[in-house]
């Protein structure tokens, strides 16, 4: 058991659980967005599926992390996470600029408040995933 293996095993499980929750809350008839103040569950079934599989791949890869195939699976899973988180960030930025009903551009307060929590789970987990770059570098493979 290496540190990398433990770390990504844990991250994988966390992703998997959040993915399942997002999937269930996103099913037709349930579809709801829960807001816990700092964390919001978007309730989007597709997103849930993606995060779930992302967690699954990260977890599967962590089990054989010493092996290049294991690292590959971890990276694949994290790429999926980065897609979801990246799109969140991108749309938050774009939504913070226009002024809506009020005018052409957003007010300064409006602009800043677009960036305060709650965030989706993928966004919270995103910084923890960046660690993988260290392992890629360490292996020296691109």
């Amino acid at each position: 058991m290496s540190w990398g293996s433990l770390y990504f095993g844990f991250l994988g499980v966390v992703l998997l659980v959040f993915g399942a929750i997002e999937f269930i809350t996103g099913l037709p008839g349930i579809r709801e967005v829960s807001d816990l103040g700092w964390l919001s569950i978007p309730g989007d079934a597709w997103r849930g599926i993606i995060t779930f599989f992302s967690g699954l791949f990260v977890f599967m890869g962590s089990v054989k992390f010493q092996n290049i195939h294991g690292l590959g699976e971890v990276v694949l899973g994290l790429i999926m996470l980065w897609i979801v988180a990246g799109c969140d960030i991108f749309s938050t930025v774009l939504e913070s600029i226009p002024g809506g009903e009020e005018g052409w551009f957003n007010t300064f307060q409006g602009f800043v408040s677009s960036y305060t929590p709650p965030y989706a789970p993928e966004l919270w987990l995103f910084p923890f995933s960046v660690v993988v770059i260290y392992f890629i570098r360490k292996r020296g493979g691109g």
Partner: protein
Amino acid sequence: MKKILLVGNPNVGKSVIFNRLSGARSVVSNYPGTTVDFTRGYMEIHGERFEIIDLPGSFSLEPKDKAEEVTRRMLKEKKPHAVVSVIDATSVERGLYLTLELLEEGYPLVVALNMSDLARDKKIAVDGQRLEEILGVPVVSTVATTGGGLRELVSRIPEARRVDVTQVVQRIKGKRGGKLHTPLSPDDRWNLIDKISGQVVFRGKYKHTLKDVISDLSVQPLTGIPLAIAVLYGFWSFFSAFAGFWTDGFLSKLFDEYWLPWIQGSFPGAGATMAASSPLYAVLVGDPVASSSLEAMGVLTSGLFVPFAIVLPAIISFYLVLTVLEDTGYLPRLAVMVDSVFHKIGLHGFAIVPTILSLGCNVPAVLATRILETRKQRFMVMTLLGVFIPCGAQIGVMRDLIPEYVGLIIVFLFFGYFVMGAILNKLIPGTSPEILMDVPPYRTPNERTVISKTWMRASHFLVEAIPIVLTGVLLVNTLYWLGVIDWIGNIFEPIFVTWFGVPAETARPLVMAFMRKDMAVGMLGGIPMSTGQLITSVVLVSLYFPCLATFLMILKEAGPKDLLRSVAVMVFSFFLFGGLAHLMVALGGI
């Protein structure tokens, strides 16, 4: 017709190669007087048609069973233009035995080192170039299951040649070895193979890189499908954020608050309503009291608003992501993964590109069918898109009206896409040759190239599509103003009521859908009906003719004859799948 024969040991991937080379149509024949079957098909190289035959697997040309005997006899009878010797790269030696025999007998040869992916996994490196030097015939590494290298294989078939095996022996053993006589004895042959493989096969040498691993994972269905879902999700998120930013954030405001009131007020001939205005006003400006450019319906209002404020940002963001996917090397991998599914209906993996595009807007999707090879394939995809793939605007409105059922409806429509695709594939004459896909390594796209490519595509689209959209608005406005749309609606009313079980009032929105599908779906929301009827009507609007802009695009790309054929298919599918939806809703008790 010149013949190309595929020969090799059993299970080296001959049939997979054969299927990829010969496309959808092939026939299994029985060799007379035996129980042995072989498969025949056709392929084109530089416009010339070749017959291609997949021979039964054999280890040697000295037949030990019926299959090997048939292989030997067919090689003799068919007088092949070229023989492709397929070798399993994980056990080169076994394949070389047969290859040497073929060379000794003087067949013009090309060697395919297949399963090179498995060889890599097993850390076996095969030096194809060295093998080519030794044998004196083209040697190409292939991965039949993903199509890798097949394009090169095909391009080198014309280089197939006969060689004198004594020269091979000399190249390996020096002049001294030249005294061996052909045909070689099996012992001599194995000796020679040992020497060759000593120079060509290296075990334990290949080191897998992270890129290789990710590349493999992204085409294997188990990991590839979830990745594809993530990529498409990203595609849509980016697309809606970018398009929303420009359209909702700035352009709608510009049009609705400045342009629309100005032109409504300053264009001569305005009345209290559209009907009371002058004909020119009604056609060019539309509704004199409309508060949004989308609803005004004039050539200078909706006609400018739709292409510039809605479509343009959508198209730019769309092409931006598409170009990135293409340049990173992901798109070919997606195409490879879905290839086998599309193969069943005579298309190939690249049909996924227009299909995805069409979920945004049919107009660029019709343009994108140029990616397909033959007229038949282009016609099939254009027609199928027009009928079965709802555009972005429609999906948006569907989500407002019946959010719980959008997923189901889309699944139903995709089902229709493939059923109708299979039918069309049988009915339409013409070939579906394989496009051999080369899967390039993953790489970081160059931002300059991405931007210039996106710009080229978007401006190209503008030049081609805007005149079409404007003509469309003009035409439908005129028809509407003349009362033709109401008139058609009345004629079709009874059919809609009985065959589809929807209320009579839906006829007019359906005819309206000819111009703007999203608007038609919106109009349905105002008609009182049951959920079941609502589902059927929404399906109907999707199945119904594509919007006028798409129509004109098909006309431009495929010509009037194919447009008419396409319309025939559309009418047929409309009644068939619309009726089916009615039936399913009824059976499901919704």
